[in-house]
């Protein structure tokens, strides 16, 4: 935890995956107010994968959605690229695969302060 969480976030490129428009734009607003640049927000993992081909994010916030068909391609790709990420989820931990047991989770509903402090932790490597 840094004393000024927003400090590390300014100027960072944060990928946001969230299929709900309101939640996505809330995340975007919180991050932009802290000085970050949002990649996306993307409503599908496919869009996000296409986006990171062009621009490499510094970190990512990913919504966990079980309703769209089975794919963990995006977290896999981010891990491969060494991009830290956190899950934003309404699910309990047991639906997250074992491989991501250590990945930080933000439980919905998420306030802007939490978004910024989590992003800051991801960027400084203080997150798991």
């Amino acid at each position, binding site marked *: 935890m840094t004393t000024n969480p927003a400090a590390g976030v300014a100027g960072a490129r944060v990928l946001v*995956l969230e*299929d*709900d*428009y*309101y*939640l*996505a*734009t*809330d995340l975007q607003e919180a991050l932009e107010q802290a000085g970050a640049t949002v990649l996306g*927000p993307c*409503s599908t*993992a496919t869009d996000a994968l296409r986006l990171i081909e062009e621009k490499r994010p510094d970190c990512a916030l*990913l*919504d*966990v*959605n*079980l*309703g*769209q*068909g*089975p*794919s*963990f391609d*995006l*977290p896999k790709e981010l891990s491969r690229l060494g991009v830290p990420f956190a*899950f934003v*989820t*309404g*699910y*309990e931990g*047991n*639906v997250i695969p074992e491989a991501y047991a250590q990945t930080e989770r933000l*439980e*919905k*509903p*998420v306030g802007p302060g939490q978004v910024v402090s989590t992003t800051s932790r991801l960027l400084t490597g203080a997150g798991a």
Partner: protein
Amino acid sequence: MIGMMRESMDDAAKADIGTAEAGGGPGTPAAPTAEDRFRALATAGALSVYRMSPEWRLMYQLDSDTLAVTSEATEDWADHYILPEDRERVGAAIREAIATGTIFELEHRVRLADGSIGWVLSRAVPLRGQNGRIVEWFGAARDVSDRKRTEEALRDSEAKYRRLFDSMDEAYAVVEVLKDETGRWADFRFLEVNPAFMEHTAMPYPVGRTATELLGTPNPRWAALYGQALDSGTALRVEETEPALGRVFDLNIFALDRAQNRVAVLFTNVTERRRSLNLQDTLLAELQHRVRNIMAVIRSIVRRSHDEERSAEDYVQHLEGRIAALARTQALLTRRPGVGVDLEEIVRDELLAQAASEDQVSIRGPDVALAPKAAEVLTLALHELATNATKYGAFSHRDGHVDIAWRVEPRDGRDWLVLNWAENGVPILVPGPLRRGFGTELISSRIPYELRGRGSFELRPGGLRSEIEFPLVPGGSILDMDGGTI
């Protein structure tokens, strides 16, 4: 025991022959008579001893502790000792012994002196005269009632278990576990199964065949489990999926005969139970997800409704309307799996919620079934349009009219829904809140984001026009789930 019996019989035979040869001549007074010896033999050996005529027509004598004693030659001996239903069998054995001149031996039931029925193992040897002809038969019958009762009880018990295995709902099988040439448990052969086995597995009658023969592939997992039960000698309780059969089984596996590598397995097909438990877990997770998501959405709507309204009263009214529309969409999401949401129903519901009168509205369009997500977004969009019409547009004027029409058209290989909202008869156009803020954002930004379509507005003479279009995607309720994603 048998040796002893033979010995005893030999003695008795000698005694009997002595009697026959002596012909009742003078014996030593102190010496026991053959008669005495005969009786002594009966009581000492717990045997019934008997003498029969060469053709077994007459019973000369029978001495016993348990059977009625015959002391004079009698013809109807069979009536006394042999049960009617056994006479045929006993008769056949006697005829056989006479024909071959060898030992008679048979286990059969007898009527005891007290009227009850017992079992004897009866053996008789032919005694021959000097000319070699059979003079008589000398026999001894040992009471084997206790052993027979035990055997019968065992048979009864076996029959009872057999009935149990045959009638129970659980599948039961005995298998012989087989090793491969390297000594690893590799396969197994079915030795016994009950009728439920075929029901639970949908396999043909498997007895005599190996699992590999039956399923067409080796089954190392099963062989290993059965082998484990043999190796450890302890019972295993496991739930296993059998891919070849596409079924999940709940099994109790236990070693039946470790020397012969035999394992018994008691199991049930729990495929359905497992599926419904999994579905329940998924639904619970999904419910949690949705509740949290909806709370987050409400929080966002509360915040977003705030800056567009002038008064607190207005704010509350709008907020209530939006939350009510959101609530209506929730009911649509949990309908039966595979059933889309009827577009016309959504349109009518949203107009009804605004208390729009029938003659101010016309609705036209083909039957369209919407996926839940599309239904949710469209409901909220129509809510915004209808609310705006009530406050500022067509529904706020006597002559106002709203024409809602939609069509489905193919674009890029997909069906798109194109819906037009056209207000008429609005004399003074007021740029209501729909021009900015929540409703605008919903239609012009949320529709592209979530439905990959477009939404637009236009204020034209006569009233507001809006066009909403998006590709139709298949998908029923949130109950249609078969996996997860991020």
